[in-house]
């Protein structure tokens, strides 16, 4: 039997928690930027209690000298600014006997679950320290302690501090710096001085969240209109776009609701310019009627949906891969469209650009599926080089006479006119129609247009981006996964392979149209295991529905909101493989 590899990778995991206003998140933000400036990589996620403000919150950083996006198996260092409702985070901040827990010993004692974890505990007088420096805040002492613990050079912290809190003025910066330095002296011995063994890079890198990456990709793709109604965890995308898109000749429209947002996108796109919206499950539900209109009227439209726990209002602030069924099948009538999911934050820029381009070129709805984890994780990555997908709208030739908006063509893509052009006026319609766009309820025209709308999508050559396939020689097992589960699964599979397993990995990006033959080719003669973060195995059943995978394939499906970690995936995989024997 294969043993799980030690969950300890070459990483450094730091978490900080505290009640509202203690500034745990700020510590995380500065530390991540400082680590990046020092030449390393990292990922930061956050967790909040149910309170709007004034409640508890936590940040979890996982740092490394190579690109990293998964959560850590356990915290090397946890710094508790206080213990308010710490139980809430216990799933997300696992502590072991290898953990170091630093806390303010002028307040409550560590809760039982911390004491029982076997972690090394160091209590310090944070609250008293604050009194020693006028105007200082506790979290800056904490930042100093962490800086010292991991052996990070103060210059990086200083630069990161200026960048993060610069707007607050010089006084804040100098007071903070003083506190950080005082903090560094509070626990002089460093317990996790890993950084010195790592290889810093000199390469330029980006500090970016998934939602920002998504917005940037759309801007690269020529986005001119983002219409949206706020919803967690998608609002950041539009908030990223708002001050930037205008510089590129575009605009944001704040809609009264999601029904309006989606119709605005269709109207904007009918006007000839690339348009999108961003939402999450409840908003997506409200948009499906209009998305069907985009499909039927063949109006390009990009919808980014950032999944959260469901059903209904569900768990708005946490991640789950639970809307796959809906993004594929949430429409009435035959509604062929394109569904794409990036596998990690790193590729979000390019995949978003591709998604917008596909909407334009195929004149249809493209749904890009992200989730709270991908969208709200902040990562340090190598800058993403620009690409040119050359995906544009097909325009009627300048000399068109007898223009037919819904003409049946070889490629099944009909030319779409630019409003303002003389002699190509047409009426776009969601009623079934003839080639000219005239309403029709005749079977022949219905079937012609149904076929055209399906074919233009299946006939397109999607190239290599349809999936990320990592084949292992002599593989007997193929693992298939998607979206934010990909990174944890990848690491688990790599670890198992290092121990002699023969597992190939397929990270599926193009979910619709399903590339059945390509999947079948990769799956040939292998046992297939599908891994995803939802209760019912939505991807698993979807792959079966088109015979893309063998009948005896296995499903590893677990509801959110706790994210997969490489070790949990490994354990599940080993269990599954054992069961097959």
């Amino acid at each position, binding site marked *: 039997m294969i043993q799980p590899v030690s969950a300890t990778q070459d990483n450094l995991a730091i978490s900080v928690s505290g009640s509202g206003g203690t500034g745990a998140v700020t510590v995380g933000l500065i530390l991540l930027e400082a680590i990046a400036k020092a030449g390393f990589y990292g990922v930061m996620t956050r967790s909040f209690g149910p309170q709007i403000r004034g409640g508890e919150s936590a940040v979890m950083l996982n740092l490394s000298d190579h690109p990293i996006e998964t959560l850590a198996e356990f915290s090397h260092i946890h710094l508790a600014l206080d213990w308010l409702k710490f139980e809430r985070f216990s799933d997300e901040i696992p502590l072991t006997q290898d953990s170091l827990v630093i806390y303010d010993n002028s307040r409550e004692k560590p809760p039982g679950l911390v004491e029982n974890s076997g972690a090394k505990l160091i209590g310090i007088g944070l609250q008293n320290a604050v009194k020693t420096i006028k105007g200082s805040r506790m979290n800056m002492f904490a930042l100093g302690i962490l800086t010292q613990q991991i052996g990070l050079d103060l210059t990086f912290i200083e630069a990161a501090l200026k960048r993060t809190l610069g707007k607050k003025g010089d006084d804040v910066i100098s007071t903070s710096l003083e506190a950080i330095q005082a903090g560094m002296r509070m626990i002089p011995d460093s317990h996790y001085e890993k950084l010195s063994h790592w290889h810093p890079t000199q390469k330029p*890198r*980006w500090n970016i969240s998934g939602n920002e990456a998504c917005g940037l990709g759309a801007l690269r793709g020529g986005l001119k209109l983002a219409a949206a109604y706020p919803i967690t965890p998608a609002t950041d995308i539009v908030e990223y776009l708002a001050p930037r898109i205008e510089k590129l*000749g575009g605009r944001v429209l704040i809609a009264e609701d999601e029904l309006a947002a989606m119709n605005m996108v269709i*109207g904007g*796109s009918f006007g000839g310019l690339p348009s999108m919206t961003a939402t999450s499950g409840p908003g997506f539900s409200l948009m499906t009627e209009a998305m069907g209109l985009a499909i039927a009227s063949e109006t390009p439209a990009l919808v980014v949906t950032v999944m959260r726990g469901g059903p209904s209002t569900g768990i708005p602030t946490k991640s789950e891969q639970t809307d796959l069924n809906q993004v594929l099948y949430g429409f009435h009538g035959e509604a062929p469209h394109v569904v794409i999911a990036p596998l990690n934050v790193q590729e979000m820029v390019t995949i978003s650009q591709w998604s917008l381009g596909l909407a334009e070129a195929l004149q249809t709805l493209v749904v890009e599926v992200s989730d709270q984890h991908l969208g709200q994780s902040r990562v340090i990555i190598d800058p993403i080089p620009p690409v040119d997908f050359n995906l544009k709208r097909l325009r009627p030739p300048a000399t068109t006479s007898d223009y037919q908006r819904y003409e049946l063509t070889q490629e099944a893509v009909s030319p779409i006119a630019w409003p303002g052009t003389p002699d190509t*006026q*047409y009426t776009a*319609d969601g009623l079934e129609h003839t080639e000219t766009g005239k309403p029709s309820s005749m079977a022949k025209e219905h079937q012609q247009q149904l076929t055209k709308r399906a074919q233009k999508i299946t006939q397109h050559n999607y190239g290599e981006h349809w999936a990320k396939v990592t084949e292992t020689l002599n593989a007997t097992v193929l693992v298939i996964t998607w979206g934010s589960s990909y990174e944890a699964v990848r690491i688990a599979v790599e670890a198992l392979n290092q121990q002699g397993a023969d597992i190939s990995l397929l990270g599926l990006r193009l979910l619709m149209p399903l590339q059945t033959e390509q999947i079948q080719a990769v799956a040939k003669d292998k046992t297939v295991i599908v891994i995803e973060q939802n209760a019912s195995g939505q991807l698993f059943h979807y792959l079966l529905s088109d015979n893309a995978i063998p009948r005896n394939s296995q499903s590893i499906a677990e509801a959110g909101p706790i994210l997969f970690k490489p070790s949990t995936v490994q354990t599940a995989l080993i269990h599954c493989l054992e069961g097959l024997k």
Partner: protein
Amino acid sequence: MTHASQTPLEKITVKTVKPTEYLSNVHPVWCPGCGHFFILRALTKALAWLKLPKEQIGLVSGIGCSSRLPAYLNVYGFHGVHGRALALASGLKANRPDLTVLVAGGDGDGYSIGGNHFIHACRRNMDITYIVMDNEVYGMTKGQPSPTTPAEWQSKLTPQGTGVARFNPMGIALAAGASFIARGFSGDPNGLTKLMTEAIQHKGFSLIEIKSPCVTFRPEEKAWQKSMRSLNVSPSSNPAEAAKSIYSSDGFDTGIFYQADLPVYEPTNTPCENPADVLAEIEKELNV
């Protein structure tokens, strides 16, 4: 209710461009005698009067007998889904402020399912003209009550009437922030043409609430021809005053009730000269 103070309805003649040039070759599905025919005709006249190039017009609608309008005109049209025309048109106008954006639809489409977009389109006050073809019924689905149907009207769905008072679309438009509010009548095509030219010329969101009989499901509406008359007060630009004239109207006055010069929402539309450079700037923010 008396309809004493009849003011003769005004005349308008079109000289320069032929209204029929704006018609497409699709024949309306409307019932013979439907009020919507006259609105179509008035609209082509107004467009001709304004000499608007056909290709510069974006005409958006929802679903309903009335909403079939775009297909009958030789302009860029969008026959969308039920109730969402104003939202779709707002997206169009945002991206293409150079186009003349018109929206047409029925009382069901605009005031029932589309009510939220109605109030928010008024509030946004974009430069859009909204033509409501109000027959106080859902024609397309064969005769159910709409928000403007009188409480007593009996239908299959409401055998004893709706029991709910009709509401006041012009009053709502006013409170929501529309800057041009008028009532027209399909039986007065000239007056209507005039209202339409003024509404289209008005900068901001214009509502023309047009009474248009549904001869099939509300044959009694044919009597409107006798009761409609021109408004004998001139448009107010003061909301409190306009509220008064709207609230005290018996529903049979036609004319402009409110017209004001309010801030028009026009999202930025400065084309970017050097997108590559701007993008590079934007990406620079990400650098560690």
